[in-house]
Each structure stands twice: as C-alpha cells, then as structure tokens.
C-alpha cells in the first residue's frame, strides 16, 4: 500500500501534514518506527521469534483485530467510538455455533449477519435517537456479550474438524494465513472507501465538524448509521475468523477486551480521537505492533500480570511520541 493511503483524509495526496515540520513527521510515522524497533529487538533478543510458526500464529491473531480496528478507526474518524466490537465478535461466534446444523456456509453468513445487525442497531441508536456513541456501544458491549452467552448456555461449543470454517482457521499461503490475506484485502477496499468514495468523505467531514457538515447539506446521520453498521459487519467477520482459529464457538473467550486493542491500534496508528482524519495503514501497523508486543511478553516469559502493565506503558509511550509533533 502506498503512503497516500495513510493520509486518507480528503486532502490525500501530498497532503500538508507530510511537508511541514520534523515534529509532524515523527507524529505521523511513530507507529512505524515503534513497530520496526520492536521487531528488530525481537529478532535479536527474543528466543525463537524468527521461527515461521511464530510469525504465522501472530498473523492469525492479527487478522480479526485488524478488521475491528478498521471499523474502529472509521468510528473514531467521525469523532465517535465503538466499544461493542469485542462483544459483537462473541455474538457472531455464538450464532455460528448454534446454526452449525444448517451447514457451515449458512452459519458463517448468519454469524456475519449478526454482526451487521448489531452494528446497524448501534448506528440507529446514535443517528436517530442521538445517543452518544460511547453510551450506545457500551450498552451493546454488555448486551451482545450476554446474548452470546445465553445462546450457547454459557458453554463453549467445539466445531467439527473439517469444512470451510476449520479450513479458515488453518489455511495458509506459505506462512501467511488466508484470514490475514482477506483482512489485507478488506483493508485495501476500506482505504478506497475512505479516500475515494462519498460515504468515506462524509465520515471525515462529520468528524471534522458536525455542524459545518450539516449546514453544507451533508447526510450526517445517515453517515453515522453507515459507519457503525460497517463496524458491526467487520466485527461479525472478525468473530468468524476468531472462531475458526479457536476451533470453537466460545462466548466467554472470544473478543474479550478486543475493543481496547482496536482503539489503541487506531489511535497509535494516527487516527486522532478528535476526529477528521483516518489512517488506514497506520491502523494496520498499530494492530501488528500490539500483537508483536503481546507475543514478545509471552516468549520472554514475562508474567501476564506484568505484561499488561508493560503493554499499557508502551501504549502511553507510543501515544506520547505521536503527540510530540504537536
């Protein structure tokens, strides 16, 4: 992907952020610097990091997070947030679990559809009832998780060993998982959506100034409904990927706290919480950065408790670096 895609505001090519000052340069590329530094560190220090199996596993884990982080970056670009994505993944997973009887193809469609329904519901709460996205998606975070658990009676449900879903959970092209390739394809479509199409532009306008967008005759509310609907759809697909990878529908495990990684990835990647700008490439690298970080802790035998604190410190550091430009 080209550098242009990173600057997905309508300003896109040669956009002014690129040319101004060193500080801005650090800000817009901090995620890449941090990612490169961490990978370099792992290659030198972390035992076994070079093993292709590690890289494959890392990419398997990254694929669903990339999808929800893209949706998240769009929501954040409109100056909103979508906290529901992790729970929606779990709901998608449960729906896949209970509908397996009708064939895996059908259950995949229904799982993804459940995500879309959640997203549209969230979008309508925000656009029509004008509920703050923080509140509406928080309630969906609770409700979707609860519904997911209820559907499977709170238990985990193992998938059969063959069929398209298990295939998705294991198939690779050389070391690269098919799910990661799909996520990359989705990211490219997403970048096109944001950079070149009217709904993508409307989302950025709405994030830059709601009132100005309304007065310029833009369909602000429809845009918001679209944005959260898309985020739900992507979370549905992410739920499918996570289920396939796990080999089971598990409403207690899938997507737990994934919304936090998605938000952190989007923001570290250069999509400011104040809206009006979306960085697609940055978001992807934000996800990879967090995933590599998790892997580094595990592979260096750092206890999970300390790992969380270190991860938090790392995120704060990356955000500070991003702010440093001003």
């Amino acid at each position, binding site marked *: 992907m080209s550098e242009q895609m990173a600057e997905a505001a*309508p*300003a896109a090519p040669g*956009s002014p952020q690129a040319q101004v000052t060193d500080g801005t340069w650090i800000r817009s590329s901090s995620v890449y610097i941090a990612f490169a530094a961490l990978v370099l560190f792992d290659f030198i220090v972390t035992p076994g990091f070079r093993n292709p199996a590690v890289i494959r596993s890392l990419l398997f884990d990254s694929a669903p997070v990339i999808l929800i982080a893209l949706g998240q970056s769009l929501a954040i670009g409109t100056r909103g947030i979508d906290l529901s994505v992790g729970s929606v993944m779990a709901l998608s997973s449960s729906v896949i679990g209970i509908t397996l009887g009708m064939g895996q193809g059908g259950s995949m469609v229904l799982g993804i559809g459940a995500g879309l329904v959640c997203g549209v519901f969230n979008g309508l709460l925000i656009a029509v009832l004008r509920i703050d996205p923080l509140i509406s998606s928080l309630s969906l975070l609770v409700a979707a998780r609860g519904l997911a658990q209820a559907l499977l009676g709170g238990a985990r449900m193992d998938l059969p060993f063959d069929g398209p879903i298990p295939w998705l959970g294991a198939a690779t092209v050389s070391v690269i998982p098919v799910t990661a390739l799909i996520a990359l394809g989705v990211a490219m479509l997403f970048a096109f959506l944001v950079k070149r199409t*009217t709904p993508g532009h409307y989302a950025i*306008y709405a994030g830059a*100034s709601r009132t*100005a967008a309304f007065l310029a*005759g833009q369909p602000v509310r429809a845009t918001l409904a679209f944005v959260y609907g898309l985020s739900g759809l992507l979370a549905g697909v992410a739920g499918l990927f996570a289920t396939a990878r796990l080999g089971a529908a598990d409403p207690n495990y899938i997507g737990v706290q994934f919304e936090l990684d998605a938000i952190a990835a989007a923001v570290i990647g250069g999509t400011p919480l104040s809206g009006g700008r979306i960085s697609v490439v940055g978001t992807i690298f934000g996800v990879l950065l967090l995933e590599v970080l998790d892997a580094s802790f595990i592979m260096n035998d750092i206890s999970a408790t300390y790992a969380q604190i270190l991860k938090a410190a790392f995120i704060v550091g990356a955000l500070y670096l991003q702010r440093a430009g001003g």
Partner: protein
Amino acid sequence: MLLETRALSKSFGVVAALRDVSFSLRAGEVHGLMGENGAGKSTLIKLLTGFHQPSSGEILLDGTDVSFDSPRAAQAAGVAAVYQEINLIPERSVAANIFLAREPRQLGVLTDTAKMVADSAAILGRYGLAIDPRRPLSTLGLGLQQMVSIARVVSLGARVVIMDEPTSALAGAEVDILYGVVEQLRREGRGIIYVSHRLSECYRLCDRLTVLRDGRMVESAATGDLPRSRLVAAMLGRENAAGSAAAPHRAATATAAAPAETAMLVTGLSWRTRVRDVALSVRRGEILGLVGLLGAGRTETFKAIYGAETPDRGQVEVAGRRLAHARPASSIRRGLAFLSEDRRSEGIFPKLSVRANLTAAVLPRISRFGIVSRRRQTELVTRYIRELAIKTTGPEALISELSGGNQQKVLIGRALCTEPRVVMLDDPTRGIDVGAKAEVHRTIRTLAQQGLGVVVASSEVEEVLELSDRLIVLNEGAVAGELETAGREPEDVLALLAAAAEAHTQ
C-alpha cells in the same frame, strides 16, 4: 509616561513578528492599537503581558526597565489584558470569579463569601455595572462577562489594561456600557490599550492611534490629527488604499437589479419566539441587507429560511418553487446557499484542506456511483481559487492556515459550487481585517452582478448600508421597517432601529 517600549523586536525563528516598535502610553490615556491580521498587534500584547520575551529592545513601566517572564509577573506589576475569549469559570459566581485564587479568608481556611460579594458589588458599582455578584457568571451575556473580566483585572491592581477586540462580542447596549467602563478607567488614571478593527469605535474612544503593519509601527498620532483616509492607508499600505474606498460598483448593481424577477420570497416565517411572521423578498441581482441589534433574530431568520432550524410556520420560495420541509440539503438542491456567521465552528472544517472545504457541499455532483471524481474536484477547486483570488499555497493547504478573509472566500466558493440562485451571508466580514473586508465586499457585489439574489446581515450598520440596495430592519424577530439605501446615511438606519425598539417597548 506610564508604559513605554523602546525599539522592541520579536522574532520567531527567522520570522520577524515585531520590528523596532517604540510605543508609549500615558496614564489616563486610551490608546488605539490598529492593524490588519498579522500586523503584529498580538505579538506586541504578548510581549507586554509576559507571554513572550522580546528578542531585543526594552519595556519601561513608570520609566524603569522591566522584564516579565510570565503573565503573572506582568499582572503583579500592573499590566493585564482582557481577551475576547473569556478565561474565567462560567459555573461560579461573578464574585468568585473576580476574586478567583485570592478569595478573602475567614479563620484562614473558609472563604469569606459575604466580604467577597460586598467587595465585588463595590468594584462593579464603581464602573456602573448593575450585576448581582452572586449570579453564576454563565447566566450573564458574553458582553457582561467581559466587563466582569475587566473588573477582575482592575481589582488585581492593573494600571495598564489591554483590551483585545472588546466589542466584537457585544450587543448594542453592551457597547455603551463598555464605553462607560473605559471612561471610568480613564478617569482613574489607568492607561488603556484598545485593540479593535472598528474604525468608528476607535475614533470615538481613543486619544491616540497607533498603526502596525508587517510588524512595524507605521503611524502614531493623536486621533484628531489622523484622518480616516490616512489611517486606512497606513493599515493597508498605500497601494491598497484606493481600492478600499467605497463602492463605485454600487450604481451598477442598483440599475441592473431594477427590473429583475424575484429570486426568493419568504412569507409568514415563524420559529419559536425568535422569528415572528417574517416576510421578505429578494430580486435577482439585488443585495438585500438585514440589520438589527444583536438578538434581533438575524441569524435565526437565516437558519429558519435555510432549514437549519425547522420553522413552525411559513413558506420559502426560491425561483418560484416552494421549499417543502426544508433541510440544508434540500435548500441547497433548490438553489439556496447560506454562510453562517460563526465561520470557525459552523463554516470551515478546520482540519481539512482547502480542496475538501471548497467541495464539501457538492460531493454527489462530482461523484459517480459513490466514487468522487478527483479530476472534477480539482477543476472546481482551481477554478474558484482563481476566480475568487483565494490566497493559498494550493488546494491541499489546510484551511486553518488561511487568513479569515480567505477562509470566507473558500466558503463563498463552496456556496458557488452548488450553483445557487440565492446566497445568504450572515455577518460575512466578522473578524476579518480591513483590507480583506473590502475584498469580501467586492466578491459579494460580483455575486449580485452575476444575477444572484443576495441577502447580507451584519452587526455593522455602515457595512450593510454600503453593500445593499435595500435593507430590512429586524427587531425582536419581526420585520420592523424597510429602506431603499441609495443616498441614505447610517443615521437614517439607526433612526429606524431606534423607532422599532421604541415601538416594541410600548
């Protein structure tokens, strides 16, 4: 001399923001500081109040050399500024704000509220301000909040009071209150530096006027010795001065307009209590002015016509076609465009480029199957940058990097992209400096010459009078009078306004 600067200079990197400025302020003097945006006024103020430190030169207070390393130090020495944006705490009482961070104490820990209120009342009373000090600050209008701000710095012992564009947020009566306060400050022997864009205000209030341009002091004289033409010439540089002189275009627009058909007809428009049964019409090629005191319903009338607020009753016809259930989007489709008075929060998209800002209202027209055509977007943007002479480094420049006047032109360009029949501009030159103002005026006249119906509102009567062919006076949300402007003086309009206000109170 109360305050003096000698050869004061300030550079930011290689940019010289202020060069060799020797400025002086006597006790009991109101000294107007004028200049266009970027002339160095704010830099000078920031040096005087300790926000910045001078690169070279000196600041003298009562003849002794001083250097302020912070606004707090400047305040302690008696130099304080009151800004347009009020930096007090809206939720707390007026008294608490006046005594913020230095509340009188009882037993060392408790705030002595009674004393604080009494002292505040005394301070406010001294400046003729009938404000209950116990009221929360936020319940006051912006204008009165500003007075509280002034009362606060004076009670802190400020002997030099710097007022940065004090009247730009004020309504008619509040301006008189401000003038009263300034008079009292003068009587008390304080020095006042008065920064404003409004010439008439400066001529009325100031004893001396100093003009900065490009960081240099280009004029400084007693008000009586400085004719307006020379002042404007000093602010703009001589080459621009001729162009800014009033309206040779006027006659042309007026004659062209005479026989034309109606571009927009509004009847019986009402919205809550803010717009009452407003009827107006504007012809093609005509500029209709809307005047009225702040709160008379100018902005509300525009927004109700445009559909930004949903009117309770009334009809709007553009070029003979009725706008039903108007929303901004449908109004734009029918050929009606609107520029908000609040450019910063309702007009521009501050983080986005000139390109994105200019084409914000026409995305569907330059898209096919939802894909935006960059080529058609570029065509529109380059066309309007050229036609409206927008000064920018290019289409990709951030709009926030442009001057106010050029931002406004981008917004006019945004409106023109929609190929409107009627353009409504609410206070289009607010916060725009003198030179750019003349240019925005020219642009508005051109719109009318091209056959558009134009409706313009402004808080400055002179501006509306100069621009428009006909004007309507609003009072308390209702139309209170109408006037053909040819050959009229501001006094005629003020008389109408006064009559309307009086009629309403009876």
